[in-house]
C-alpha cells in the first residue's frame, strides 16, 4: 500500500459519504444532534483540499497529516476520534514506505485502539466502535491467514454490515444517544453507519477499481 492508495481511498470514502447523506443525517437527527453528516463531510472536504500536499508523503506521514487535519476540522465527538484514529495509524506505519497487508492491518488495529482510549468506549456501547473493532480484528486475522483481497473485502463488508445493523438494537452508553436511554432503540448509530460506509467504499475501490 502506498500514498496513492490512501488518496484514492479518501476520494472513494468522500464520494460514498456524500452518497449516503440522507441516511447518515437522519440517524444523527434521530438519536444525536443532526450534525454528524455535516461534520464528516467537512472532514472529507478538508482532506480533498490538501490532496496535493499528501502526494509526496510516505504513508505514515500522510496518515498523520490526515489525522491532524481532521482533528482541526471535524470537531464534535467524531473529530477527536477519527483524528486520533489516523494519527495512530500513521504512528504504527512509521518508517515503512510501502506497508504490506499485515502491517496495514496492525495499523488499523492501532487506530481503533486509539478511538477506544480517546472515547473511553468499547464494544456494545452503540458507537462507531461496534463496526470498527470487529472489522480491525477480522482484517488482522485474514491478513495473517494470507487471505486473497477479494475474499477479504467480501468478508469485511459482511462483518461491517451486520455489526452496523446490530447497533439498532443497542442502548447507548456513550455519545449523545446515551441521553436517550431506551428511546435510542430502533435507530442505527450514525457513527457506526459512516464507519460501514467508509469500509465499503475502500473495499469496493480495492476490488473493483483497484489501481495497484
Amino acid at each position, binding site marked *: 500500500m502506498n500514498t496513492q492508495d490512501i488518496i484514492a481511498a479518501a476520494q472513494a470514502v468522500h464520494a460514498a459519504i456524500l452518497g449516503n447523506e440522507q441516511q447518515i443525517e437522519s440517524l444523527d437527527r434521530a438519536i444525536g*444532534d*443532526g450534525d454528524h453528516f*455535516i*461534520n464528516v463531510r467537512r472532514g472529507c472536504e478538508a482532506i480533498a483540499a490538501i490532496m496535493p500536499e499528501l502526494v509526496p508523503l510516505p504513508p505514515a506521514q500522510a496518515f498523520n497529516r490526515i489525522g491532524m487535519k481532521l482533528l482541526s476540522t471535524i470537531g464534535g465527538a467524531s473529530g*477527536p476520534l477519527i483524528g486520533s484514529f489516523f494519527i495512530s495509524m500513521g504512528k504504527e506505519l512509521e518508517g515503512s514506505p510501502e506497508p504490506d497487508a499485515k502491517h496495514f492491518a496492525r495499523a488499523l488495529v492501532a487506530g481503533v485502539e486509539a478511538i477506544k482510549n480517546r472515547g473511553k468506549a468499547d464494544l456494545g456501547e452503540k458507537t462507531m466502535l461496534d463496526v470498527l473493532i470487529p472489522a480491525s480484528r477480522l482484517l488482522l486475522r485474514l491478513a495473517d491467514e494470507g487471505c486473497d483481497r477479494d475474499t477479504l473485502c467480501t468478508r469485511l463488508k459482511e462483518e461491517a454490515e451486520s455489526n452496523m445493523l446490530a447497533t439498532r438494537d443497542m442502548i447507548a452508553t456513550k455519545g*449523545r444517544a*446515551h441521553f436517550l436511554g431506551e428511546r435510542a432503540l430502533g435507530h442505527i448509530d450514525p457513527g457506526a453507519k459512516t464507519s460501514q460506509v467508509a469500509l465499503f467504499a475502500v473495499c469496493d475501490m480495492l476490488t473493483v477499481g483497484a489501481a495497484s
Partner: protein
Amino acid sequence: MKKFVNDVEQLLQESLQGLATAHSDLLTLHLDPTFVTRKQLPQPKVALISGGGSGHEPLHCGLIGTGMLDAACPGQVFTSPTPDQMLAAAAAVDRGKGVLFIVKNYAGDVMNFQMAVEMMPQPCATVLVNDDVAVERSTHGTGRRGVAGTLIVEKMVGAAAEAGASLDQCKVLGDRVNSRTASMGVAFTSCTVPAAGRATFDIAEDEMEFGVGIHGEPGRRRGLVRPAQELVNELMAAILGDLQPKPGSEVLLHVNGFGGTPLIELYLLYHCANQLLEGQGLKVARSLVGNYTTALEMAGASLTVTLLDEEMKSLWDAPVHTVALRW
C-alpha cells in the same frame, strides 16, 4: 428552512465578524483558527477559556469581558470546536497564571478540550459543567449534560479570577458552583441546524419534549403540553430533588429561554418558579431571566437553581462587562 444567511458555510464566520465589529470595544476576533478574545487583557490573572458548538448565543462569546471569560472557541453550529482553536486561544490569553477551561459535559467538547490539554505547554485545568438533571447520572455513561448553569459557573469563576484567585482556587470554585447548580428544560418546537436545513426533530402541535437538551436532543419523555405552573412544578421537583436544599437556603433562580420563547412567557415562568421556591421556604436571593443559553430558535425554556452562600453571592454581584451580562 428560512434563515438570514448568505452561504451556510460562511454563516458562522460572517456572524462572528458582525459580533466583533458591533462590539469592537470588547472583543477581538481571530481566524485560522477561530477564537474570540477580550479586547483588553487585564493584569496577570488566570485565563478563563470556554467554548463549544455555536447556536447557543450569547453563550459563550457574549460572555467574554471583565469579570468573566478571556476567550471563547466557537465550533460550528452544535459541533464542538477543535483542539487547535483551544491551543491558539490559550496562547493568546495566557498571562502566566495558568489557563482554566470551562467545558460543558458532552463527549465532543470533553474530548476536544482534553486533546488540547494534552498538547498544552501551559499549566491548565478543566471544569466540567454537568448541571442538567433531566438525564440521570449513571456510572457507565458520559454523565449529565452541561446546560444553562454554565453561565453561572463562568460568572462566579470569572469574578474570582478577576479578583486574583489562583488556577487551583478557580478550579475548586468552578467544581463547587457546578455541584450546587441544577437545571432542566422543556421544549415546544425543534430547531434547525443551518447546514442540515431541516428541523432536528418532529413534534406535534400539542406536544412538548420534557427534559430536552440544548441541541434539540430528546430528554426524558415526550408529553402533552400542560399549564406553565404544572411544568414548573415538575421541573423544580427534579431540580430540588437533586440539590436537596436546606429550608431557608438562599438560591439563584435562572430562567433561560431557548431562543424561540418570548420574554412575556419567560417572566411568567419566573413568577411561577419564584412562588414555588418561596413557598418551599427557600429565598430567591438572585435572579436572571432571558435567552442566555439558547438552542437556535427552539421554543422552550429551562430552569436553573444554584444554592448560594455568601462567597457565591458576592462573586455573582461582582462587576461584569460583557456583551450579554453587564453590571
